[in-house]
């Protein structure tokens, strides 16, 4: 069962009544995401909270994946998107803001148009 954030104590809970503070918790819609890059996964999260990904057909946990990748494999439980040595993911908005001439910038969708900081 997916977790929702308690509006009162801000903890993640799975029940309709928060076991930590007793407040009523609205269940968030269970969403599925396709197999995407880290930045797309992060960027899509906000949108996914209100809109399901149309191409996915069977419900699963929010961060799970039911859309097969191009090679036909599956990606259940692709849910951890950060590692210690890894860099911060980069998105098209970031790249484009810095170099408008980049033709092969990442094409991952993102809802967060991070300003790369024009000088």
């Amino acid at each position: 069962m997916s977790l929702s954030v308690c509006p009162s104590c801000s903890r993640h809970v799975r029940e309709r009544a928060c076991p930590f503070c007793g407040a009523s918790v609205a269940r968030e819609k269970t969403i599925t995401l396709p197999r995407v890059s880290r930045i797309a996964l992060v960027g899509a999260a906000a949108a996914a909270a209100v809109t399901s990904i149309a191409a996915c057909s069977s419900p699963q946990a929010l961060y799970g994946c039911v859309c097969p990748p191009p090679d036909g494999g599956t990606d259940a439980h692709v849910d951890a998107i950060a590692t210690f040595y890894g860099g911060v993911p980069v998105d098209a908005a970031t790249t484009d803001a810095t170099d408008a001439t980049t033709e092969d910038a990442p094409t991952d969708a993102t809802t967060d148009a991070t300003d790369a900081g024009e000088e």
Partner: protein
Amino acid sequence: MTLGDRPRSLPIAPTALPAKRRLPLADDVRPQDAVRPIYAVWEITLACDLACRHCGSRAGRARPDELSTEECLDLVRQMQELGVFEVTLIGGEAYLRDDWVDIAREVRKRGMQCTMTTGGRGLTKERALAAKEAGIQSVSVSVDGLRETHDMQRGVKGSFDAAMVAFDNLREAKIPVAANTQINKVNLREIPAVFDLLASKKIHGWQFQLTTAMGRAGDEKELLLEPWQVLDVIPMLAEVKKKADAAKVRFFPGNNIGYYGPYEAILRASFPGKHRGTCGAGRSTLGIEADGSIKGCPSLPTADYTGGNIRDASLKDIWERSAALRFTRDQKASDLSGFCKTCYYAEECKAGCNWTTHVLFGRIGDNPYCYHRASTLKEERDVRETIRKTADAPGLPFDYGRFEIVEEPWPH
């Protein structure tokens, strides 16, 4: 706070052992092994121009058997075929390898994203331009404190100033810049100021993580936070998050920052479900060492988590059929121990970062570096946890010693 002399005598940078070879692979591929990595972190050389006191890989000297250029380019092909979306080049220091630009160019040519993480000491204008030419899309510079604190941890005077120059060189070359920061006892109080500094360098994202007891960091007990200190760290980071939002800097908690509690939804507001998932080693993440050793996560200890070597088997076979790459695919909440076994979040968390736990205790499944755990212990039993070292590490890249958890009353 300052650090004393290095606890381990020379050599600071040991010569790595030759790669483990001809490791066993399972005969069959199970349905859960069809999962594919989205993200690969690749140590292309262990050579380094810094001498960081927290370095988990004890970097400095190149490995004795690092992959050739041809082997690297073939590995890029195999990563593409396996379905990797994004490759981060690390070291040691990636740019110390003569063909680092060729490797980056091949990653981009094959349609994958390419980023790099660097200490920045030698990231000159020329190297920044070369990175741009190769198609590297972002470079994350490691900054672990303000000038004095950073230099103390990095082991080289002037490394802070060099990192600042690296930011400037990268931006001049029109490469988006990010930053990554360790959080530990030495720099804890400086973190908000470090963020302000990084924001002034116009970073697009900031990744941060707790210094973990691997390699040299395991030698330096005074660097390591006590588990109860997450009760200070997490709220502090939530405050910094407000500044990050205002500065439009993407906030990216590392996998050992957490877990749950009232700040999780703030720290991971942009993550699916506004919370961390379970360890992605061997599912979403792939780690590669410069000698072709394949792991599920770049941080995991080499001795315990190398699934195979690319010189012996294909990447696909190692990914699908090695026990070391499979372990999180089979990890269950019922496998946990201690506090984590009975935790409310056991199923969703599975004891957080397996790397952090393994290098402390030699096993996974009970992670004291957790906000929910520390706050629960404080509220319900008025106790807190510290760690005590019981054995030194042997002194090899990606090694670890042994610690134990000690419970004590909260001081009043």
